[in-house]
């Protein structure tokens, strides 16, 4: 089974993304939403851990509406992270077998 993991907290403020990446399986997807979208950006102290997880096969997506709200343009997002809208969020939830929200 594959899991959609949602992370809604900043990786600079909370341990949610760290724990998520520690426990995630390679065929799963992480969707960054709300304050979690800052994790998707290039050249941050969190970028390396996401790149490492990508190398292992974990897929990443980020909610574009939340990026835009925070003035973070899509061209600053780490290569390979797909930008989705709310409909894409719904689709991701439907495409995986279960959903783990790292609140």
């Amino acid at each position, binding site marked *: 089974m594959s899991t959609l993991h949602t992370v809604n907290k900043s990786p600079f403020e909370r341990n949610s993304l760290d*724990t998520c990446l520690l426990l995630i*399986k390679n065929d799963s997807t992480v969707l960054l939403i709300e304050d979690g979208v800052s994790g998707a950006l290039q050249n941050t102290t969190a970028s390396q851990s996401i790149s490492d997880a990508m190398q292992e096969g974990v897929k990443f997506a980020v909610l574009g509406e939340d990026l835009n709200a925070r003035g973070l343009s899509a061209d600053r997002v780490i290569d390979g992270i797909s930008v989705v809208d709310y409909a894409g969020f719904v689709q991701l939830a439907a495409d995986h077998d*279960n959903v783990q*929200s790292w*609140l």
Partner: protein
Amino acid sequence: MSTTKKFTYINRKAPYGSVYALESLEVVLIGAAFEQEVQLVFVDDGVYQLTKGQETDGIGMKNFSKTYAALGDYDVNQIYVCEQSLADRGLTLDDLQALTYEDEDDDWAEKSSMNLVNREQLSDLISDADVLLNF
């Protein structure tokens, strides 16, 4: 689809600082009546929920820690505790309540509900769940 699902509760918050620990327990107790498979995972600060000797008089809040001991009577006996989370916090299983249940398939022998799990086992627990309840 069978109507029996695997309900996996992911408990990541310390008790009393927020209400999530208490409310997670409430859902587990109510849920027991629905005869689903139930697994409780304690990871990150969630491991503090199970510490022995909680005394809440000083903060004026209800002490609900004794309720965990009743979980076995509700057929909730799959308790998984992250070993790394304990180690990071200087805790061992000895610091936690020793939750047990009586095994009806084994002449009601008293058995431990507690399982220390590593990163890979936790991964599997999340992956294998039908319904993940996040607290």
